[in-house]
Each structure stands twice: as structure tokens, then as C-alpha cells.
């Protein structure tokens, strides 16, 4: 392993250099820049493969390596090294990011073919890959934060990619800003968490912080970090994760982020970046385990988001927004699993991996559909596309089955694991297993409903509802080959890694071995119930959207539908709960500043001005008045001198 560890920095280096060349090279790189981007991403993927195969060859207990590069900053008691942590968790992410990333790069070559700024797009994509790899490979929270901000920047740049400054592109600018600002809220959490770690442990390295929470095994008292501090850190980290992963209550930006190009939605806002929060939770597992309260909050956040996203997804007619809601919901699953402790970590990451594949496939499929339908995104104007887009139809179908969790497709293996883990009873709190387990099953049912709705509204139905002049056709091979790869992944990845617990074992060095607990219900019962509700949900959707005719205009719908269409009033809630009070405070401060502070200080210049106005009258411009002033002054001085000195001298 040590002979190839030197390659590790190149994981980040290749895409970073690619981004630098594309950004600095300017128009000179326009002709071949996109292929350089693909190459950089692919090169990074090759390095990842080499490292992973070497790691598989090493014994399990040696699979966590901190590769020190150089000391980044040394300030007082804080020493931060620029180092890379290679372990199964980070390598899983490396593989996901580079593999899916490269496929999406290839897809983008065709998708962005007609865009005049394709080179810039690839530069940002490379920048994103580099930042994301920095995030997952960092050996300290501070370096992770660098990647964290890097992906935030790339996300911002790519959401606003089509912001041309014209009023018609305002939506893009607003969406980019919204994502950026909401991510900042989460970033504050990460910064606060780092500050807490530094004050408690004096370091922000994983290798120092995580063992410090666990103690030396002699009991909680030996831990450097008290339960209270751990809870605080855990909640701060959760805040960060909520921002980045669009979890409740910071979920509002994800739907709007779909304003960016579709490959971006697939790579950043479905497969990789938004899962960074889950990575952070799993990476900080020991902290959460030391803080049961924080853990409970994580689970609650996951459960709420899971239902929230699912409900929103049922009502969206925009194919990308429906997929975005689905992403939110699926990450809710992962978050829920991450809050369940060691029993859930592996399944959280597993689901993250499979989700990365099938959701990327679904998004790229959606992109392919949009490509075929002249950038139409309204599913009510699709329908009957299966005959015209067979490859897209089949690959999206695989993704659809995967997300539904139908065995043997990959979603089944990961999602079912999460549902089972949710049913594992927690000591002293028997309600938790029932509540969260039920929520997970319910979420699966709703997921089945909205994904089936999406699938059949797009491809099903005999009567197309296209707008006039549509001639749907499959895109170039550059577009459908990635779809095929992702479709295969959606179909098989779960089985390959899930049967026999291969993936769970692979992650064990990082997340620890989960003690086996029996769920409150027998496992076959859980699987059966889940499958039944999933099939029921899918059948309901099939009946409503494939058998019955879909109206081209959205019907008014019930109260819940209307609420879901408006994202369950998330924007209104943010507006009321945050923006308006903030406006109020700002206005208060403004008024206070203007009317109290400014006016208070204004007294001084006013006094000066008043004195000036009074003394201005002395400046009559009449030279005789001035002469009178001088003569009067002389007289006064003479008189005083006479009175003071002369009288004394006369004695």
C-alpha cells in the first residue's frame, strides 16, 4: 500500500490542474477543453482504482492511512497538517465521485455541445471534482472545510451557469444566491463545531478528535470531550450537514438549484455534493455516539426530510424538481441511518453509493428527455416517450426500479438495510423503533408513488401531450453510453456489494463493527411489508397516471397537493420565520443608526453650523466693520492693560 500512497495527492491534483488550465487558458482551450476535463476526471478515477485495489489487498486493520503532505498552518496551539486520509470510507467516495463524475463529464460533452461557454462549464466541473475529493480525503476538519467550501463555490457557479445577467436569467442568479446563502448557514455550524473541538481537544484532526470522544475504553469519564460538548459539536455538525445536504430546515435551496444545467443537477445536486452531509455525519460517528441527544436530532431531521421530500415529490410537475425532491427524501433516509449509530452507518453509505448511481442515471435520463423535447421540463407535456427514447426509457426504468427498492435492483439492498436498522429498538426508548421504522416504510411507499408517477407521466400513456413541433429522438452515443453504465450500476451494484455484506465488511474498519440487534419485527416481515406498500404505491400511481389520462394543465388538487406544489410552503415559512424578522431587525438597526446614533452625532455638526451661522454675520464684507473689530480689540486690550498694569504701576 505504501508504494502507491504517493499517488493519492494526484486524486485531487488532476482535476485541480484541469480546472486551472481551463480557467486560465481562456479561449485558447475552447476547442479541446472539454476533453481535457474528461481526461482529468478519468485520470483521477484511474488513480482511485489503483488505490482501491491495493487497499483491498491489505489487511483490514491497516486500511486507514493518514498520508501527511506538509504542515499547512501552525498557529499557537493549533497545528494543521495538509494530509490525506485514505480509508475505505474515503475511497468509496473517491470511486463514486470519479466514476459517476467521469460519466457525467462524458455526457456533458454532448449535452453542452451547443453552449458557447462549454469550456468554462468543464472548468467548474473539474473544480467541483477536485473540491469534492479534497472534502472526502481530508484528514482534518479544517481541510474538509476547504473542500466543503470548494464544492459550495462550484455548486454556486454551476447553478448560476446560465445567468447571463439578462432579466430572463434572473431565476438562475436567484437560485445560485439562495443555495450559497443557505449553505453559509450550515458553514457557520461547521466553523462552530471546529471551534468547539479546538477548545476541547486542541486539534481538528480526525485522528485526534475522534478518539478523544471515545476515550481510552475505560468509560465515558476518560473522554476528553464531555457529553454536553459532544452534543454541541454534534448539533453544529448536523447544522452543517443540513445546509450542504438540503435537510430540514435548510432544504429550500435544492429545488431551485435545478436551474443549473442538468448534468450539474445529476453530479452535484444528486449524486455527490449533497451527500457530503451524510459523509460528515458518518465520519464524525464517534462524536454522535457520545451524544445520544444529537443522534436523536439527526434521526428526527432525517425522518422529517424523508417525508417532506417525498410529499413534495408527489406534486411536482417539473421533472427535475420532482427528482430534486426525491433526492432530498433519499438523503433523509441516509441521514436517518447515520443517526442510528454503527448499525446504520454502513447502510447510510451504501444507500449513498447506490443512490449516487441510480439518481445520477435518473437525472441524466431526465436530461436526455429534456434534450429530446427542446428543454421542456413539464411532465404534463411528455408522455408516450418510450417508443422514441428506448435507451433512456430502459435506463431510467432501471433507476426507477432501483429507487423503488424492488429486489434485486440496487436500491433494495441499501434502502431495505436502512429500514431494518430503523426498526432496531433503542434501549429505554421503545417508541423510537416503531416511529422511525414506520416513517421509513411510509417514505418508501410515497417514493414508489411519486417515482412511478414520474416514470409513467414521462414514458407511459398512449396519447402524447407534447407541445407542437416536437420530434423526440435519442441523443448522441456520448449521451446514452453514460446512461447505460449508470443503468447497469442501478441494476447490479446493490446486489454485487450487498449480497453477503461485502460492503458492510469493507466499511468496518471505519465505522466499527455493529453489534447485531434484532429489529422489533422479524426481518422477513419488514421486507414483505415494505415491498407490499411499495407495490401498492406504484400501482396507485400507475392507475392514476398511466391508465387514466393525465390532464395537460395541473388540476387544482387538494390542500395537501397545493401545499406540496409549493414545497409545503418552505419559502413562505423561511420568509416569515427568518427573512421578515431579519428585515425587522435590520430596519430597527437602520432606524436606530439613523435616528439615534446619526442624529446624536448630528448635534455636533449642527452646533458647529449654528455657531458658524452666528459668526457668519460678523463677516459682513464691510472693511469698516472689520476695522471696528480690530480697533475695539485694541481698545479692550489697552483698557485691560491700563487697569491691570497701569493702576498697579501708578502707586
Amino acid at each position, binding site marked *: 500500500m505504501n508504494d502507491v500512497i504517493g499517488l493519492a495527492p494526484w486524486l485531487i491534483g488532476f482535476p485541480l490542474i484541469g480546472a486551472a488550465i481551463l480557467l486560465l487558458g481562456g479561449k485558447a482551450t475552447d476547442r479541446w477543453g472539454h476533453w481535457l476535463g474528461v481526461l482529468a476526471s478519468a485520470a483521477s478515477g484511474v488513480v482511485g482504482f489503483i488505490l482501491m485495489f491495493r487497499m483491498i489487498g491489505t489487511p483490514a486493520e491497516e486500511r486507514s492511512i493518514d498520508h501527511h503532505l506538509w504542515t499547512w498552518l501552525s498557529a499557537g496551539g493549533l497545528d494543521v497538517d495538509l494530509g490525506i486520509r485514505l480509508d475505505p470510507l474515503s475511497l468509496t467516495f473517491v470511486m463514486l465521485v470519479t466514476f459517476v463524475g467521469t460519466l457525467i463529464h462524458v455526457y456533458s460533452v454532448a449535452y453542452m455541445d451547443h453552449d458557447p461557454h462549454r469550456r468554462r462549464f468543464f472548468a467548474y466541473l473539474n473544480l467541483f471534482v477536485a473540491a469534492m475529493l479534497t472534502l472526502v480525503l481530508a484528514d482534518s476538519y479544517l481541510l474538509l472545510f476547504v473542500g466543503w467550501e470548494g464544492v459550495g463555490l462550484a455548486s454556486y457557479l454551476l447553478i448560476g451557469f446560465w445567468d447571463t445577467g439578462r432579466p430572463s436569467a434572473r431565476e438562475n442568479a436567484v437560485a445560485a444566491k439562495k443555495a450559497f446563502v443557505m449553505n453559509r448557514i450550515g458553514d457557520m455550524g461547521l466553523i462552530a463545531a471546529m471551534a468547539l473541538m479546538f477548545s476541547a481537544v486542541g486539534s481538528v484532526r480526525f485522528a485526534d478528535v475522534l478518539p478523544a470522544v471515545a476515550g481510552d475504553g475505560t468509560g465515558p469519564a476518560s473522554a476528553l470531550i464531555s457529553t454536553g460538548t459532544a452534543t454541541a459539536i454534534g448539533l453544529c455538525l448536523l447544522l452543517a450537514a443540513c445546509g450542504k445536504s438540503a435537510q430540514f430546515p435548510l432544504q429550500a435551496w435544492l429545488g431551485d438549484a435545478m436551474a443549473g444545467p442538468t448534468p450539474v443537477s445529476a453530479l452535484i445536486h444528486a449524486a455527490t455534493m449533497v451527500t457530503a452531509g451524510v459523509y460528515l455525519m458518518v465520519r464524525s460517528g464517534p462524536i454522535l455516539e457520545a451524544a445520544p441527544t444529537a443522534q436523536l436530532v439527526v434521526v428526527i431531521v432525517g425522518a422529517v426530510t424523508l417525508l417532506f421530500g417525498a410529499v413534495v415529490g408527489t406534486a411536482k410537475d417539473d421533472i427535475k424538481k420532482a427528482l430534486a425532491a426525491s433526492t432530498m427524501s433519499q438523503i433523509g433516509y441516509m441521514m436517518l441511518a447515520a443517526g442510528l449509530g454503527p448499525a446504520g452507518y454502513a447502510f447510510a453509505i451504501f444507500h449513498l453509493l447506490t443512490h449516487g448511481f441510480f439518481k445520477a442515471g435518473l437525472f441524466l435520463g431526465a436530461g436526455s428527455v429534456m434534450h429530446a423535447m427542446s428543454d421542456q421540463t413539464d411532465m404534463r407535456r411528455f408522455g408516450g416517450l418510450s417508443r422514441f427514447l428506448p435507451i433512456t426509457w430502459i435506463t431510467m426504468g432501471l433507476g426507477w426500479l432501483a429507487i423503488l427498492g424492488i429486489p434485486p435492483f440496487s436500491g433494495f439492498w441499501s434502502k431495505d438495510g436502512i429500514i431494518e436498522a430503523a426498526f432496531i429498538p433503542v434501549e429505554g426508548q421503545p417508541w423510537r423503533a416503531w416511529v422511525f421504522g414506520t416513517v421509513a416504510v411510509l417514505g418508501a411507499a410515497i417514493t414508489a408513488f411519486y417515482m412511478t408517477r414520474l416514470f409513467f407521466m414521462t414514458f407511459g400513456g398512449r396519447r402524447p401531450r407534447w407541445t407542437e413541433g416536437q420530434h423526440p429522438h435519442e441523443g448522441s452515443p456520448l449521451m446514452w453510453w453514460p446512461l447505460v453504465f449508470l443503468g447497469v450500476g442501478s441494476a447490479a451494484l446493490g446486489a454485487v456489494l450487498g449480497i453477503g455484506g461485502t460492503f458492510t465488511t469493507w466499511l468496518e474498519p471505519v465505522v466499527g463493527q455493529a453489534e447485531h440487534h434484532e429489529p422489533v419485527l422479524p426481518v422477513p416481515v419488514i421486507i414483505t411489508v415494505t415491498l407490499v406498500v411499495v407495490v401498492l404505491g406504484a400501482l396507485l400511481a400507475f392507475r392514476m397516471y398511466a391508465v387514466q389520462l393525465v390532464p395537460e394543465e395541473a388540476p387544482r388538487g387538494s390542500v395537501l397537493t397545493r401545499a406540496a406544489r409549493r414545497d409545503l410552503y418552505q419559502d413562505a415559512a423561511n420568509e416569515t420565520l427568518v427573512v421578515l424578522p431579519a428585515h425587522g431587525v435590520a430596519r430597527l438597526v437602520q432606524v436606530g443608526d439613523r435616528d439615534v446614533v446619526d442624529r446624536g452625532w448630528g448635534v455636533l455638526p449642527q452646533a458647529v453650523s449654528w455657531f458658524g451661522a452666528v459668526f457668519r454675520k460678523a463677516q459682513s464684507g464691510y472693511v*469698516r*466693520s472689520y476695522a*471696528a473689530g480690530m480697533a*475695539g480689540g*485694541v*481698545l479692550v486690550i*489697552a*483698557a485691560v492693560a491700563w487697569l491691570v498694569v497701569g493702576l498697579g*504701576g*501708578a502707586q
Partner: protein
Amino acid sequence: MNPAGLVISTGETVLFWVIAPLMVLAALGLLFVKRAVHAAMCLVFVMVSMAVLYIAQEAPFLGVVQVVVYTGAVMMLFLFVLMLVGVDASDSLTETIRGQRWIGLLIGLGLAVVLGSVVARAAFPPAVGLNGGDPGGVANPQALARVLFGDYVVAMEAVGVLLVTAAVGALVLTHRRRLTPKQNQRSVADARIKALPDGVVLTPLPSPGVYARSNAMDTPALGPDGEQVPQSVSRVLRIRGQERPAPHVPADELVHTPESERDA
């Protein structure tokens, strides 16, 4: 030095009491006369009297300088400027700045009172005098010259520079830049030719009428048609309305005038 101190002669006393009130009166004239020329004459009187007092006070050189410089040069300069500005421009004595008169009077009286009482109350040493009677004494111009060119030679030179500077400065200040080209006979003639279309005549205007009974600038001449020619009377008189009508022309003088033009 005369250890006995200075004795002021009776003649000087008489001189002082004659001259001093006159000086004060003349100075007050400066304050009260209307015309600047009269004020200048008052000041001339004050300065000449001052020269007399200097001579009486054992300062013959200064007395002469006072007459030459002040009365001869400075006051003449004043009079020249008065001529430039207008000799008869009398000064209105009504005050325009509110309260200035009372303030001025108050300050003037105050100064007089303060200065006078200071002088009156101060204890002066016994007067020494400058040995005015002794030709070799210090009061003569030679002694003054010795001090002036001995102790104060630098100041003397500086004052010389100051005078030169002042002279140049006065030249610069009063210098007038020519803004239009200088007019000569040719340009005047050209201008008149150019003004022909505007009704200007090149020839001299007709002279006023000369008659047996009235021979004056203010009566217009009569044209060949017996009508009055207005241009023949000075423009100033016409504007003031001081022109007089031409005397009646007897009808028989117009006998050669065609019938049709007679009443025109």
C-alpha cells in the same frame, strides 16, 4: 546731557497752545467735511503743523522730511488720485452699516480716553532734551545720520528695497492691459465705411442753423425744402430736449418751391 533737565521755553509753550487746538480742529475736519479734497487740505494743514512741532521738538531733520515727504509727496499723491477718481465726488455722510456710527464714535472716544488717561497717569522721568542749543549736540542731522547708518544700516537697506518694491508694485497694480487693438485713423475710417449701410453718413453732419435773429447751436438748419434738419443740432441737446424750433420761414422765400412740395 543737561543734568538740570529740559526747560521748555515760553515761546514753545505759546506755539504749542496756538498750534495744537488748530491741529485738532483740522483733524476733526477730516472727520466732518463732505468733500475729500477738503479733507485732504485739512490733513495738509495738520501735517505742516506737525512739521513745525517737530522742529520745535529739536527734530529739524524730521520736520523737513515731514514737509517734503508727507506734505510734498504723499499728500500730492492723494490729490492726484482724487483728481483721477473725481474731485467733486462728495461723500455722503449718512451711515449705511447699522450701528457703525455709534460703534466708531465709542471706539474713538474710548481710545482718546484710555490713551489720554494713560499719558496723564503715567509717571515719566524728568525730561532730558536733546541739547538743542548746542550745534555739536545730538539733535542735528549729522547725529541722526550716524545712528541711522550706524546702528540701523540693515533696516535702512531693507527700507530701500521696500520702497523699490512698492514703486514696482504700484506700477503693476495700475497697469492696464490693452484688450482691444489700438485705434488709429485708418481703422476709424474703415469702421465708418463699414457702418454705411446702417445709415451713418461719411460727410460731416449739417451745421446748426444760422439766422439773422437767432444764431445758436440749438436751432436746427433748414433743408433745401424748407424743413428742419434734426441732425444739425447736437445729439446731447436733442436728448435733453433743449433744442429750439427754427424761426418761421416767410412764405415768399419759398416762392421757387414747387406747389406740390410746399405742404409736405
